[in-house]
């Protein structure tokens, strides 16, 4: 595939209805870059390898790296309580307020509601204001008990960077990562993106998204825009040095992901950890308003891959690119997305029926037409952007179920699990949601 990648990328974006995509990968020390399609169906501007895409939550690894740089300078440790670094920090649970650590934030194990998408303005005080607004955030699960994806935790982590450096998160990122790595096509603010070709997200119907990006307060959790080559350079620095003395500290497993079929088996510090054909793979993905990005790093082979896409079936697309590319480059088999079993499985689902709720989302599991059905509803600030969706579920084993939206090639998976206190949870979309009734 590698040789004919230009051709192949164009075929794959057509297959997955992706308006535009770009790919950069490092293999045997050599960088390869490809681009296909358009950045914006409205303007028709073509994608180039130098175009910026929103890398969304891949940003979290960059924010985690900033904290690890500060740790290497002796300003904190992974086990430093957040309250020690940010005395003003507060969430709903007083005990969590006191005891949650940097490690919890960077491994998504704090249990703090992670989906507060609050617009605190365009100003340089937006992250500080966001952290002040966290005072009422409830717990999705007890501190450290399991893993549940936590955007708000990374914004708090970003605030720690601001507090310790006296700079905005954006400035600290530029000084501690962009500049040392010589990244020329990586930015955080839209007025900076305007110096470059910049991708626009596209929605379900293929039309350009109503707005370009998320509110600035989300910065440390997901607001970098970059060309894939610059993201690969960041991944490369985690293998070959340039940012941290000991980058591999960030690959140490911190928690098993209850649903290992979506992103990976474990969370490290910032990174998601998995194993393909016996090789350790560290990765992170990102989704913003109609844009999607993936970064994979294989320490054993030195290969680093970044793929970005601005709409369509982007998750299935990046998975397809990875599957073909890693087979050819490193002989690795990317695990296929979990789908329904060949033979139907009989499972007693009675105990799973009910309502699961965390801040911003309600999941209702019910029996419909003789099978399980999952109703997903947004209840937070993004409720207006998302329509409720109902998906029939198919059992894979006693605790694992899959389903997909009509017309979507992506299967979603859900895993039911119990905490030692007996509470039933469902783990889907990287989040743990407790059963409430």
């Amino acid at each position, binding site marked *: 595939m590698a040789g004919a990648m230009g051709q192949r990328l164009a075929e794959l974006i057509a297959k997955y209805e992706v308006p535009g995509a770009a790919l950069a990968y490092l293999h045997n020390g050599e960088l390869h870059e490809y681009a296909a399609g358009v950045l914006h169906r*409205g*303007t028709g501007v073509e994608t180039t390898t130098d175009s910026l895409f929103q890398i969304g939550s891949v940003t979290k690894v960059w924010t985690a790296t900033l904290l690890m740089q500060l740790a290497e300078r002796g300003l904190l440790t992974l086990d430093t309580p957040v309250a020690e670094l940010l005395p003003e920090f507060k969430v709903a649970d007083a005990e969590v307020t006191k005891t949650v650590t940097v490690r919890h934030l960077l491994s998504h194990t704090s249990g703090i509601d992670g989906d507060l998408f609050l617009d605190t303005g*365009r*100003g340089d005080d937006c992250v500080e204001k966001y952290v002040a607004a966290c005072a009422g955030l409830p717990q999705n699960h007890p501190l450290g008990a399991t893993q549940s994806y936590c955007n708000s935790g990374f914004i708090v982590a970003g605030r720690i960077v601001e507090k310790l450096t006296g700079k905005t998160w954006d400035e600290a990122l530029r000084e501690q990562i962009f500049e040392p790595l010589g990244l020329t096509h990586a930015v955080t603010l*839209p*007025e900076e993106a*305007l110096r470059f070709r910049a991708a*626009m997200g596209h929605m379900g119907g293929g039309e350009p998204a109503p707005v370009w990006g998320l509110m600035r307060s989300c910065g440390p959790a997901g607001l970098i825009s970059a060309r894939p080559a610059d993201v690969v350079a960041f991944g490369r620095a985690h293998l070959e040095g340039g940012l941290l003395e000991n980058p591999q500290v960030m690959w140490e497993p911190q928690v098993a992901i209850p649903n290992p079929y979506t992103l990976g088996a474990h969370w490290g510090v910032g990174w998601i950890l998995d194993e393909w054909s016996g090789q350790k793979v560290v990765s992170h993905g990102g989704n913003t308003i109609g844009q999607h990005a993936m970064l994979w790093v294989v320490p054993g082979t030195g290969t680093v891959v970044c793929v970005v896409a601005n709409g369509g079936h982007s998750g299935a697309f990046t998975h397809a690119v990875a599957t073909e590319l890693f087979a050819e480059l490193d002989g690795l088999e990317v695990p296929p997305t979990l789908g329904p079993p060949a033979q139907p499985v009989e499972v007693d689902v009675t105990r799973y029926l009910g309502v699961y709720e965390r801040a911003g989302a309600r999941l209702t599991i019910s029996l419909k037409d003789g099978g399980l059905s999952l109703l997903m509803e947004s209840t937070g600030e993004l409720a207006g952007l998302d329509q409720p969706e109902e998906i029939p579920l198919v059992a894979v084993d006693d605790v694992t179920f899959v389903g997909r939206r009509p017309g979507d090639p992506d299967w979603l998976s859900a895993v039911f699990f119990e905490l030692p206190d007996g509470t039933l949870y469902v783990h889907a979309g990287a989040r743990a949601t407790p059963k409430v009734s």
Partner: protein
Amino acid sequence: MDLQKRLDEAAAKHGVPGAAIAVWAGGELHEAATGVVNKNTGVETTPDSVFQVGSTTKVWTAALIMQLVEEGKVELDRPVTDYLPEFGLAYEAEITVRHLLTHTGGFDGDLFEDTGRGDDCLDKYVAYLHGTTKVHEPGALFSYCNSGFAVLGAIVAKVRGVTWEEAMAEHLFKPLGATQTALFGEEAVLFRASAGHIGPDQVVYPKWQMPRSNGPAGSTMCLAPRELVRFGRMALAGGLAEDGTRVLAERTLADMRTPQTEVPTVPGMLATAWGLGFELFDWGAFGHDGGTPGQSTLWRIVPGSDVVLAMSANGGAVAGLIEDVVLPVLRETTGIDVPGLPLPPASPSAVDAAPYAGTFTGPVMSLEVAGADGGLDITEIPGEFMASMGATRKTTRYVHLSDDHFVAAEADGGMHATVTFVMRDGVAAYLHNSRAVPRA
């Protein structure tokens, strides 16, 4: 009118990276675009590409104020502090809304303090103005005043209870039906958006956008030329948008076009008088010009001919586009002998330099005027702010044009600069180069 061919040829000839033009004439919209919006990206300019339109924004801010006047919420001759009690300068002066709209407030107009990206940027800017120094008595003289328009934007925001940008979108973009508009980077990124090009090599200006604090004066707004034409047609239609929506009262448009103050300047290409927000040209047109680092916009509305022209360019010798495209198109469509750019006379008349010689000092630069062979040598000595923007000490030879008007002997970027001296008792009291610079 073969707009496309003219624009292509002129842009190539004058080193303009990208430009777009929209002309309403003969009851039709004509558009053309050439080159690229950004040399680094190579994205081609289209007629719906957006450019930073700079100070043409001031007319839009003026319109927002005039809507408040129509609604009885603002009176032009009341002090600014009636609406914005927090407004004040380094000295006592009663400055009215009309003073600000007509650039006659008399305080330093070139304060580009960056007060951040946040919605509090205008409040912070108004607070910052408390250190602003005096140039002349309120109402005494025209002196181009960006700061005053930022204050007008703050009045709009305060009285409407929204941001200046929200007021612009709600009260002008929407009723006008303007679509190719952006006030923030996150909006401009939805379009093919022009970047400014500067210097001998025409490199992309490193900072795409100027600070938001001067938004109401023109630091942030991006438009396709057709949106300036849309506004111009509304002005010619007595305040009605294309679909019949009333944007401004007919009377308001008449007031905005009525001369409020004379501009000491060389007549012709430059406005000889100011209305409320609008520049007024002695050949019958009104409009405004605008610029941001590397980007330039020219906007002319010609009543009687039903002609509106707007052109934006993102670098190069824009004067060449004016000479080769704008002026011929205006002359052809209006039948008016539209005056050209000022030129030094073939044999300048001798002049006694004594009344003009001396040092003139303004907030952003000092100017030393000395007699020289055939005219005056004027030396610009940049102040701290201008120096930080890269300005250096520079001497330019000026020759006598007429009365107290002088024109640069050599063109800079295709344009011969002019200065006019404002005389008091036979001696130059101010050097006027759109700003009134008082004798030190």
